């Protein structure tokens, strides 16, 4: 991003560039209680406009030894410079160089005074500024080159910049060359249109961005008066951002000043706090001002994102829910619970209790196999007195059993998880035809029936070729067929990486550049296809082939891209580049493969991924529980990518088996699993559940009666119920395509729709049959509860239902109404 520097021996630049100071990494390890310290203890500033952020800290009175709890006095101290002509200091503790010489900064805090010596050198009468390292950050921070301003497709007011400054030459030309150079005036810099617009001295749609006299304004002005130097493509570039502090525990209302140091390729460190952009990644927990003062406003844990020169880093903030978590009843079932407990302690967050057996039963069935237990299954589980019956049930649902009678459950497992992955892979007859769709579907069913290890699954998919009618996974190359689409889909599906931003510009939250994007796309450059002679053009059969030639070129440089994994050296295979890709994808070199799968399955089972969004893994979006993520990933690797093993580890944990009923203390937590997160049943699961509860099956077109909705192979459906409840169209690889939202149309449909009405009133349905029997009302009511909520009614529920039946003139109406109400109740509509 920041181009290398220094073909000419610019000692000048070096001098102005670096501000050397002494940051001791252990500065927070203050041992003297109730004594505050300043950091750095001495300041050297080198060059025009250089700034440095002072931090004033006091060890925590409660835990003096814990640096993450130190009290930040920076914003509550006062600062005075002994020689403002040499350097000034503002109220936030930021020191700015003005002329060469020595000075002192007097810091007053808690009624005492400390002094920091300052030495300023290398300030030139005509400052030299570097376009990439100094000017572009100013534009970036002011928002000039954001997608909604001058970096939008057509720019604004005829002035177009590259998105977040990824193309320095384009920006330079836009500023200094285009429009006959009228945007800058070297003769009279303050008359430059650029500055007048930025300062709102003339009308500017974007408002005041660069106030007159601000450091940013002065830097731009100095760049112009210094001759508006072109981007120096040899300039040193940023290699790393160092954020202080990286982890901080705060209370609501307290704050912390951040300092950011950029490390450059030529070994210099530079305080860039005043040049970076700060963004809160969770505005309900922390807010940050443009100077990096971060304030805790809500409880939880949040990341602060810091961006500069194409790099992004984070600082983590923890704002505990209470002083101490109540974990008296917490018995860890496995490693998941140990890591969960550590997090609860860290956050002072007390989890809800364990859920009861019937809740667990329903939850486990729906989460593992997308199916409600039958009444018999429910009764036998509820009546069982085996102490480990939950673990046994999990094994049975996942098919970890030697009992052949239980093997039938793996069919539902295969159907449910094929559905999930068919959604993600986008299997769809509209795109690949009926035969292609069935081939892919059958392959997926086989993958999940046999519990194929996930690395093999992905290898088969990514290297697939041959007929799309006879080789299911080959359809992957019909669903997306050009290298960019394939690169984006593959990165998102199997690495949880959203590469698409980098197609056009540097990724705003990541290190990915256009080179990374097109290097990755190059893996797919030689995938071809041809019509099959066997079935002919109109049969629609296509054969996926690997061509001997074909390249992807960089859209800007025109360079032929070598096939290159993300952040790795190029790899290749003489026959098929995709073989090299699939090996790398599933190798230990690629941590994101296991991490992405673990995160998805945590999300499916616990209602939210450790990383959220579930398919957006990146360094600036850390897991909510890093240790738990690492442990699950290690376990998943050891099991050789066995998802059933992964699911078993999660489902056996106490964490998974927590009650969904929040406590007043943990109700606001939606990230740390303090209570089970309820989720609406998916469209297919819900329709199957209603079929079972009402005893009336749905006939799906061109499939035999009895085919369940979770078994549907295709995205195309004309079933209004499935459409209203959001069965995905399989147009997107994003998990978000299956919208978990509850909405009005759904409420109307269950409440008032003719589909449910028809099933309730069906003469062969559950209600009709039940009314025709002579069993007592009590047994009838029990049956309705068991077939919907998988539990017996409570005493009050039984009395209420009996009262309803007794007061009604028509038992049929009464039981229909009761079943209608149960199906519309939250315990039915939600996995809870």
């Amino acid at each position, binding site marked *: 991003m920041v181009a290398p520097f220094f073909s000419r021996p610019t000692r000048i630049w070096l001098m102005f560039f670096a501000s050397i100071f002494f940051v001791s990494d252990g500065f927070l390890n203050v041992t003297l209680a109730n004594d505050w310290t300043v950091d750095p203890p001495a300041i050297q500033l080198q060059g025009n406009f250089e700034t440095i952020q002072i931090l004033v800290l006091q060890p925590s009175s409660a835990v003096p030894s814990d640096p993450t709890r130190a009290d930040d006095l920076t914003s509550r101290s006062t600062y005075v410079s002994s020689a403002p002509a040499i350097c000034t200091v503002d109220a936030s503790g930021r020191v700015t160089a003005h002329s060469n010489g020595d000075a002192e900064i007097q810091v007053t805090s808690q009624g005492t005074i400390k002094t920091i010596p300052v030495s300023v050198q290398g300030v030139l009468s005509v400052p030299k500024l570097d376009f990439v390292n100094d000017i572009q950050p100013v534009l970036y921070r002011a*928002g000039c080159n954001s997608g909604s301003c001058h970096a939008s497709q057509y720019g604004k007011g005829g002035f177009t910049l590259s998105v977040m400054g990824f193309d320095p030459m384009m920006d330079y030309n836009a500023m200094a060359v285009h429009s006959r150079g009228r945007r800058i005036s070297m003769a009279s810099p303050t008359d430059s249109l650029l500055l007048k617009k930025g300062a709102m001295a003339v009308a500017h749609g974007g408002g005041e961005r660069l106030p007159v006299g601000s450091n940013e304004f002065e830097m731009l002005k100095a760049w112009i008066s210094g001759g508006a130097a072109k981007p120096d493509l040899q300039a040193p570039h940023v290699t790393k951002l160092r954020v202080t502090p990286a982890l901080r525990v705060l209370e609501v209302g307290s704050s912390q000043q951040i300092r950011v140091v950029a490390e450059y390729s030529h070994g210099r460190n530079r305080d860039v706090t005043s040049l970076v952009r700060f963004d809160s990644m969770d505005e309900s927990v922390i807010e940050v001002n443009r100077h990096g003062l971060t304030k805790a406003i809500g409880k939880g844990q949040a990341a602060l994102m810091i961006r500069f020169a194409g790099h992004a880093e984070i600082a983590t903030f923890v704002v505990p829910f209470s002083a101490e978590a109540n974990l008296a009843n917490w018995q860890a079932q496995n490693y998941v619970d140990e890591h969960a407990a550590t997090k609860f302690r860290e956050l002072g967050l007390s989890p809800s209790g364990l859920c009861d057996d019937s809740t667990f039963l329903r939850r486990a069935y729906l989460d593992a196999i997308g199916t409600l237990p039958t009444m018999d299954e429910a009764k036998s589980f509820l009546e069982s007195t085996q102490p480990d019956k939950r673990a046994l049930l999990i094994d049975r649902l996942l098919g970890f059993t030697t009992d052949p009678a239980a093997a039938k459950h793996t069919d539902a497992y295969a159907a449910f998880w094929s559905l999930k992955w068919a959604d993600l892979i986008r299997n769809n007859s509209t795109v690949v035809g009926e035969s292609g769709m069935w081939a892919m579907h059958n392959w997926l069913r086989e993958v999940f029936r046999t519990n194929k290890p996930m690395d093999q699954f992905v290898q088969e998919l990514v290297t697939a070729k041959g007929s799309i009618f006879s080789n299911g996974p080959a359809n992957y190359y019909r669903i997306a067929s050009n290298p960019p689409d394939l690169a984006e889909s593959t990165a998102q599906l199997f690495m949880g990486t959203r590469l698409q931003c980098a197609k056009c510009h540097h990724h705003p939250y990541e290190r990915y550049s256009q080179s990374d994007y097109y290097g990755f796309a190059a893996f797919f450059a030689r995938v071809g296809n041809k019509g099959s002679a066997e079935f002919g053009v109109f049969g629609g059969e296509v054969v996926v082939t690997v061509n001997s030639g074909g390249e992807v070129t960089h859209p800007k440089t025109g360079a032929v891209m070598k096939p290159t994994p993300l952040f790795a050296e190029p790899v290749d295979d003489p026959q098929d580049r995709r073989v090299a890709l699939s090996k790398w994808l599933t190798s230990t070199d690629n941590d994101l493969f296991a991490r992405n799968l673990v995160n998805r399955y945590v999300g499916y089972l616990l209602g939210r991924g450790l990383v959220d*969004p579930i398919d957006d893994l990146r360094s600036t979006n850390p897991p909510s529980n890093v240790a738990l993520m690492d442990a699950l990933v290690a376990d998943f690797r050891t099991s050789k990518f066995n998802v059933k093993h992964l699911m078993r580890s999660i489902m056996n944990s106490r964490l998974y088996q927590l009650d969904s009923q*929040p406590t007043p203390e943990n109700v606001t937590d939606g990230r740390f699993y303090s209570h089970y997160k309820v989720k609406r049943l998916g469209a297919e699961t819900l329709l199957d559940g209603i079929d079972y509860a009402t005893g009336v099956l749905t006939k799906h077109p061109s499939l035999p009666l009895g085919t369940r909705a979770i078994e549907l192979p295709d995205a195309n459906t004309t079933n209004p119920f499935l459409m209203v409840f959001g069965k995905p169209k399989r*147009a997107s690889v994003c998990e978000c395509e299956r919208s978990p939202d509850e909405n009005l149309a759904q409420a109307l449909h269950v409440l008032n729709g003719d589909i449910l009405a028809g099933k309730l009133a069906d003469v062969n349905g559950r209600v009709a049959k039940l009314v025709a029997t002579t069993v007592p009302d009590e047994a009838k009511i029990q049956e309705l509860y068991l077939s919907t909520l998988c539990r017996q009614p409570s005493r009050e529920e039984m009395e209420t239902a009996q009262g309803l039946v007794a007061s009604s003139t028509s038992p049929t109406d009464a039981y229909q109404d009761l079943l209608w109400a149960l199906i519309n*109740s*939250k315990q039915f509509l939600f996995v809870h």
Partner: protein
Amino acid sequence: MTSDLGVFSSNSKTNTLRRQFLNQAGLGLLGLTVPQFLWRTQAMANSGQAKRDVNCIFIWTQGGTSHHDTLDPKPRASEGVRGPLSCINTAVPGVQFAETCPRLAKELGRFSLMRSWNPKNAGHGAADQWCMSGRAPTPTVAYPCVGSVISHEKGFKSPLPPFVQLGNHVDRTFQGGTPGILGLEHGPFEIHAEANVDKFSVRDITPPLNIDLGRIDRRRDILAKIDRLQKRADVQPIAFDAMDEHYKTAFSMITAPETKRAFDIGSEEASLRDQYGRTPFGQRLLLARRLVESGVRFVTVSDPGWDHHLDCFSNIKIHRMPQVDQALPQLLIDLEQRGLLDTTLVVWMTDFGRTPKINPASGRDHWATAGFVVMAGAGVPGGLVIGETDAEGGAPKSHEYFTENIVATMYHKLGLPLDLTVTSSDGRPVRLLEGEPVREWI
């Protein structure tokens, strides 16, 4: 939050309000959707925005209406291009339509026609997504259609949903006509039932057979009791609160007299129904007007059967075009008489144009570089014909506009910021549209 207007922060006032609301309620953390109409209606009442709402009736003739055989004929082209249909003069001197459009020709003073639209696309499905959202389909980001954006930004105005789609003739292969990243909550309320039949009833709103309003009330009571017994404490998962709100709204929608009135197309004067034409399209368009009057903000009227690879001319002349030619001018007349034309934007789009050369089956195939767009109402000047295509109707010769320009015009007319940036349900900031409105229409 950052104090400066950042790369991804939205300019939309409502988003700020939303953030404040979420912060106050402590919900931002939970990533959950509370029925947004609640606070949006509130927000609007506070800002006085509700005064001059512009609504939209969006007509979608699915399949790709041939521009040659309707609004952009080429009488001087060779026979293999111009086809068997003759031309007629319109109310605007020098402008001719095909003989299939007599009433539109007579009423051209009421609407504006663009002949220089370049769809840059000749695929079904992609067309629905592109024309309705202004963005080409992508495998990773599902851009929302304009109706969903309206629902998201403006919310409910009455017990009726803000976005309704009549007919199911929208190809959703590439998520055309859907809320995409905005979430199901903002999808169209779909009415597939035919308005042109005597017993017109609306699925999910009209109670099913044998369920009268008394029984609905009874069921509501039972559900309330059963729910109360399931509830174990005052605090409940926040998704449950959202569900309660939706049920409350749903009950009021089913029972509200406004709802019944809005759908009671039978209460229209028989003569007016005749003037719209007793056809599926005609009655759908009349229903669209009733819905807009009753507080729906955006109505998509979809019409099937325009993919004329075979027998283009008789299909258009006999089956498809008479319905549109009858009803569309009538809608404009009706809206004007009711004083609704200034606040109702009417748009007619179709997938793309069709091939200049007639194929051996007397049909025309998909054509990616030419087509037409009709717009009227909400200040669009009537009688204005923008641009022209070349001698064979193959590509725009002047005033070329693209799909994003059409959608940007809709944004502009409907009061949506052109640079609207929303946070998708999974937390990604997405700028919805890139493009400038059509100058001649604003």
